[in-house]
C-alpha cells in the first residue's frame, strides 16, 4: 500500500495545476463579464448563401 504516497503526490500535483490554471484564467479577464456571453450564445448563425451563389454562377457559365 505504499503506492498511496505516489498516488497522493501525483493527484496533488494535478490538482495544483488546475488551481494555477484557474487563477491564470481569472487574471486574463475571462470572467469579468458574465452577462454578454450568455446572450451571445443564443445568436443564430446565418445560412451561408455564398455557396448557392457560386453554384448558380457555375451553372450559367456551363
Amino acid at each position, binding site marked *: *500500500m505504499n503506492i498511496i504516497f505516489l498516488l*497522493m503526490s501525483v493527484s496533488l500535483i494535478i*490538482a495544483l495545476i488546475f488551481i494555477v490554471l484557474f*487563477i491564470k484564467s481569472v487574471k486574463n479577464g475571462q470572467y469579468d*463579464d458574465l*452577462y*454578454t456571453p450568455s*446572450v451571445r450564445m443564443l445568436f443564430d448563425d*446565418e445560412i451561408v448563401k455564398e455557396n448557392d451563389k457560386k453554384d448558380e454562377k457555375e451553372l450559367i457559365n456551363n
Partner: protein
Amino acid sequence: MPKEICYHCGAECNNDKVIFDGKPFCCNGCKTVYEILNQNELSCYYDLDQSPGTIPTEIKGKYDYLDNEEIAEKIIEFNDGTTSVVNFFVPSIHCSSCIWVLENLDRLNKGVRTSIVNFPKKEARITFKNEEISLKQVVELMTSIGYEPNINLESAEKSKLKIDRTLIYQVAIAGFAFGNIMLLSFPGYFELDEFWLNRFKPFFHLLMFGFSIPVVTYSARDYFISAYKGLKHGILNIDVPISLGILVLFFRSSYEIFTHTGQGYFDSLSGLVFFLLLGKVFQQKTYSFLSFERDYKSYFPIAITRIDPKDNSHHSIAVHNIEQGDRLLIRNEEIVPVDGIMISGNALLDYSFVTGESLPVTKKSGDKIFAGGKQTNGAIEMEALQTVTQSYLTQLWSNDIFSKTTDKSIKSLTDRMSKYFTIIILAIALISGLYWFFIDKNTAFNVVTAVLIIACPCALALSAPFAFGNMLRIFGKNKFYLKNTDVIENISRIKTMVFDKTGTITTNKNTDISYEGEKLSASETEEVKSVLRSSNHPLSRILFEYLPGNSDKTITDFKEILGKGLQGKVGDHFIRLGSAGFLGMKDEKKLNTYIFIEMDGKVKGKYIFHNVYRKGLKELFKELSKNYRLAILSGDNAGEKETLEKILPPGSEILFNQKPEDKLNYIDHLQKEKEQVMMFGDGLNDAGALAQSNVGIAISENINVFSPACDGILDAGRFNDLPKFVKLSKQTITIIKISFILSFTYNLIGMYFAVSGNLSPIIAAILMPISSISVVTFVTLATNYISKRLLN
C-alpha cells in the same frame, strides 16, 4: 388615426415620416440604418428586439480630429502597425440586438476583424486592420448605425482601473483547500485503529496542514487586517472574534498533529474561511447589482429640451438620451445636466449645488460649462459635450450639503448594539472556556471556538442595508426615485403632509386656457412666446405649448420674479407677463388663475387658466387623512378655496398667496412643534421649503426641475400610489426589526448549544454564513413580497 411607430427606433412617426420597403420610419436617419442593415443581411437585428435602434446623429466632419495621429494614439489600445485594437464606450448599447449588431460589425466593413461587446460596461472592443479602415471610419461606421462611441480624450489619459479580483482568488484557494482537506480527513472521522490507516496518518496530517497554510495566510488575510486596525484604534469590531476563532483553530490543530494527539480541525478552519468569503461575495454582488440598477437602469425622471437643428423644434427628452453634439435649451432655473459649450444666451450659472458657492458665474458663448449649475438669467442654448453620467447627478444629489441629520435612526441603533455585541461574545467565550477547562480540556477548546464562530451579528450589519437597498430599487422601478436609504426611514416617521398647489395637485396637461382682451397679432404672439420660452414655471410651460408659432426672437433684459411674473425686451417691445399684482393692477375678484400680458406699458389682455386637478385627488386625500395631517400651500389667490375645502378633510389648513419664503416658514413652524413634515412640490418655487422639510418630494411631469435639495422625485403618473409608498416605507422598518429579533434568537440558541459543549466547530463554521445568508434572503424576500402585494 393612431400614430405609427418607427420600425427602427420605436419613436412615434409624426408628419415627417418616411416609408421605405413598406415600413414606417420616423426620420431619414432610421431609414438609412435600416437600409444598411438590410443590404448587409443584418436584418435579423430587428427580430431580436422590437424597434431596437437609436436615431443616428449628424456625423459629417465631426470626427475629422481622429485623423490626427497623436489624438488617435491616445484612444487606441494596441497598435502593431498592421492591426489596431480600440475600446469604445458606447452608451446607446441597451439590448441584445445591440450586442448582435456590434459583434457583426465585420459584415458591414471588411476592415473590421473582430468586435467584442461587454454589455454591463457598455463597451465594445474593436480590432481592425489599419490599411483597410481608419479609426475615424470605424467611428463613423458605428455612428451611422446608431451606436456612436463616446470619445472623451481627457479620460483616455487616465490609467485603466484595475479590477479587484482578490476576493475571487481568496475564495478559489479557500474552496480548493476546503475540498481537499475534507477528503483527506475522511478516514480520520471513523476513528478506527487500523494498521494501514495509522501508517499514513502523519502523511495525511502533513498534507492537511500544508493546505491550510495558504488559507490562513492569504484567504483569511482581510479579517486579520481589519481586526488589527480596529484594535489599534481601540474599537472592537466583529472581525475580532472571527480572527480569534481562526487563529485558535489553526494553532490548536497544528499542535495536535505535531504532538500526535489528534487530527486537528483543519476541515472546520478551511470550511469557516470558505463560507465566510462566500458570504462576502454574495454581499458584494448584491451591492453592485443595486448600484448598477441605480446608476444605469432606474428611472431618473429628469427631462431636458433638445432643439432639433433642422427645424428648430423643441423636444422634451429624458436625460439618458442626450447625445454628444445635441443642442439643448436650458431655461431659467433649470440645471445643466451635462458638460457642454455655451452657444447663445446670457449664462449666469449658480454652482451652489456643486461647489457650495452661491455667487453665480458668468459664461459667454464658446465657454465650457459644467454639469450641475443652475441657470439664473433667462434661457441659454448649449451643445452637449458628452452623455449624461447619471452617477454624477446622483452623486451630486447625495452631496453632504443636502443630507439631513437624524439622531434616532436605525444606523445609530446598529452602531450601539455592535459595540456591546463583541464584548459580550468575548466574555462568554472566556467564561465558558474557563469553566470547561476544569472539567474536560478537549471540550473546553471546542466550546471556545464554537462560541467565537457561531456568534454572528450579521443581522446588524446586513439587514438594514439590504432592506433599504432593495426597497430603493423597487421604488425606483415604480417611478418613485429616492435620494438614498435615509429617506425611507424618514418617510416612515412623518406625521404631516404639505402639498403645493400649482403643478403638484394640479396637472400641467389638459389645462383649459382661454384668452380675454385685445387680440394679439401673429408676430406679437411669437414675441410673447419667445419670452415664455425662457421660463420654467409650470404656467409658462403650459402657455408656451398652447401658443402657436415660433419662439426664436432674441430677448434682452430677461428677468423672472418667482411667483410673480416675467419680463423681457423683444425687438422694440417691452413685454411683461404675470399676475395682476406684478403688473400693478387692482386685485379683481378672481376665481381662476390669470396671466396678464402687458406690452410697452399697456395691458393687452389676460390668459385664463382653468385649474385641472389630478384624477383621484379626493380619494387620495381621504386615504391619507386617516393617518396624517394634511395642508395645502398655494402661491395663487384664494379663488380655489371652496373647491379645495371640498376635497380636503375638515380641519386641514389651506393657505393662499404663499411666497416661497412663506412656505418655508410654515414648514419651519410645524417642525418647531415637533411635527415631522413631508412636503410635495414642483421643485421650482418650493426648493427652500422642500429642503427644510424632513422629506421633500418633487412631483415630476417630465420637467427639468432637478433640485438637489429635494429627497425624492415622484412621477406625476404615480401620484395616486402615494399612500402605498408611505405604507411600504413603514413596513420596511418593521421587517428590519423582525430580522433583528430573528438574528438575536438564532444567536441565543446557537450560544446555548455552544456553551453546553454540544456544538462541533465544523457545524458552527457551516451555520455562521448560513445565518447571514438567511437573514439577507429573508429581508429581500419580505420586501419583495410586501411591495408585490401593494403595488401590483
